[in-house]
């Protein structure tokens, strides 16, 4: 049992780490908050005084705001659906005994180790290019006109690229869950005559609920700030400007630090809303 003395000692010893972590998060957050109330235009002479809530009002009333929130949510939602559904399918397949299982698993996981910029470049130039890309050649082989992926199906293309990158993560987590499934339960259900679909819905899926929750929570946090794939492929054109990308444009391209900072605060609020929503709805699974 911890004594008063040992508890104090523990607090003292943990203090540097806690202070460092708090500073790590709080300093940028406080600076963003500070600049969001400033009229700060580096190319117009820097700090031009306080702006009150002007930046906040301008950011939300700009015609680019709601489309960017919408694009963010579509990309996050799309990637989550694809990675969870395909992740479950791949996890079940990879769980089957097969020849060369180790190599197959490594190959499935490999995309996760490719840097986002590199994978976006590869997809853009080698697969989706309407003149030289692999897809264009395939389409032409079957007598169809090539699809201009990044302009005609821009959001879908980005979802595809990002989902390809995150699928291994989902698969890995779900595979671990599948492997922890009690085989006897499944065997008993099979002997009772339950068809495969029923076994999947009644036994496997509920068992995977916690793993799915983990996948959804972790991926959502990372996907809300998706940037590199958009920067490399469409530069925010064709309706692919997410909230993060809009903030980048405001701060770095328009050189309006105040306006961008206000956007940053909105992004923090949005991320928290999404996180609370997720914790309430799906996070309950974690308590089971």
């Amino acid at each position, binding site marked *: 049992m911890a004594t008063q003395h040992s508890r104090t000692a523990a607090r003292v010893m943990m203090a540097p780490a806690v202070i460092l972590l708090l500073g790590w998060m709080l300093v940028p957050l406080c600076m963003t908050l500070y600049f969001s109330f400033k009229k700060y*235009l*580096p*190319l*117009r*002479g*820097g700090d031009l005084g306080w702006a009150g809530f002007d930046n906040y009002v*301008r950011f939300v009333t*700009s*015609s*680019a705001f709601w489309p960017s929130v919408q694009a963010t949510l579509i990309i996050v939602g799309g990637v989550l659906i694809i990675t969870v559904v395909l992740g479950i399918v791949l996890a079940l397949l990879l769980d089957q005994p097969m020849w060369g299982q180790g190599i197959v698993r490594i190959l499935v996981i490999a995309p996760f180790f490719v840097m986002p910029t590199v994978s976006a470049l590869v997809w853009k130039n080698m697969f989706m*290019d*309407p*003149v*030289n890309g692999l897809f*264009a050649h395939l389409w032409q082989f079957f007598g169809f*006109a*090539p699809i*201009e*992926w*990044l*302009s*005609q199906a821009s959001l879908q293309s980005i979802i595809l690229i990002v989902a390809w990158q995150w699928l291994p993560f989902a698969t890995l987590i779900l595979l671990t869950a599948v492997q922890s499934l009690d085989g006897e339960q499944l065997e008993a259900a099979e002997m009772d005559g339950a068809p495969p679909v029923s076994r999947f819905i009644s036994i496997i899926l509920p068992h995977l609920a916690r793993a799915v929750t983990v996948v959804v929570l972790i991926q959502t946090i990372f996907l809300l700030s998706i940037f590199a794939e958009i920067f490399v*492929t*469409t*530069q*925010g*054109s*064709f*309706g692919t*400007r997410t909230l993060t990308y809009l903030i980048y*444009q*405001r701060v*770095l*391209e*328009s*050189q*309006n630090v105040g306006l961008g900072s206000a956007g940053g605060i909105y992004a923090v609020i949005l991320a928290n809303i999404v996180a609370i929503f997720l914790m309430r709805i799906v996070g309950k699974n974690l308590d089971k």
Partner: protein
Amino acid sequence: MRLGQVLGSVSVLAMFATGSALAQTTVTIATVNNGDMIRMQGLSDEFTAAHPDINLEWVTLEENVLRQRVTQDIASKGGQFDVMTIGTYEVPIWGKLGWLVSLNDLPDAWDADDLLPAIRSGLTVDGELYAAPFYGESSMVMYRTDLMEKAGLEMPEAPTWDFIREAAAAMTDEANGIYGICMRGKAGWGENMAFLTAMANSFGARWFDEDWTPQFDSEEWKSTLDFYMDLMKNSGPPGASTNGFNENLSLFQQGKCGMWIDATVAASFVTNPDDSTVADKVGFALAPDNGLGKRGNWLWAWSLGIPAGSDATDAAKTFVAWATSKDYTALVADKEGWANVPPGTRTSLYENQQYLDAAPFAKMTLDSINSADPSAPTIDPVPYTGIQFVAIPEFAGIATQVGQEMSAALAGQQTVEEALEKAQNITAEEMEAAGY
């Protein structure tokens, strides 16, 4: 006694070492990762050999990253760099803000009067030269001579837009993957908007009237975009709305473009047999016009400027004068051949027969540069300088957003009218916020 002597010599040596280390000035240079700059970096040993008291440190970055890094550094007075590679967009703005050191006092041997007038005027603010041009460029038509001949047409030295449309249609052979015209469609102030702004000038359009009111609701902009969309849809490659300079360069080098209207520096890439499959079949012409008195060509110069906060101004000036001198040009010619010297900055280069013999595109480059006047870019008067850009700090941000609307129209996601209406609103909103 001997120990004393040894200690004495050691301390003298140490004093020398510290002395020489103190005397050495470090010049940190931020530059862009294109071929000419990389070459300069490779040749900089020649400079340090002649100036042992100056130590050069290089920060080489990709174009967009460079722009952001140097802008952040100079705006926040970070003082990271002593020499910055900047373009004709930054120089007038930064010069006016007093952020750059005047280069009017470079040595006489540097010969400021030898600079091409258009380039010099693009880098001068109120009589002060604020950056030294490293290489300069305009834009022009590059075309396939064999396809032009096959189409039964002859490219005039100064074509009109109507001729370009006719030739593009005649050269297009989609079944064989040949498209009559390649032009920029990728969104960005330095991508499609550089091209479209220069093109709009030749159609009589302008970004702002003299009261800084945006002009996208004008008939001239509509006819510019109608023409551009029509030309690209009928004779352009698929996916043109994501094609920028590099994508079009690659298409042209593969022989997939009949014509390509873009930067004059591309001429040396498309005529280089190591990279281009059509190297011996390329002709050049001035950028097109509409008979209104302005051609659709731009003006740009990658230049070296010294930020006002630099603590090594004199050493930086020595370096800038070396890198942009006639001697440097001769050095590159000596080591790498005349075709590889940085083009487009000095009159003397275009009077040099050796260069003219080595570079078949030299005359057209010079004519294109000379026909561009950044101080009077449009037919109707405007309150701004710059041909393919408007030299105000807000332009990069505004034009990138406008470029996205143009790109979406090219991709067929909206009409020209919708794109222009959005462009007008975006520009008006941003200009109002900037206090115009």
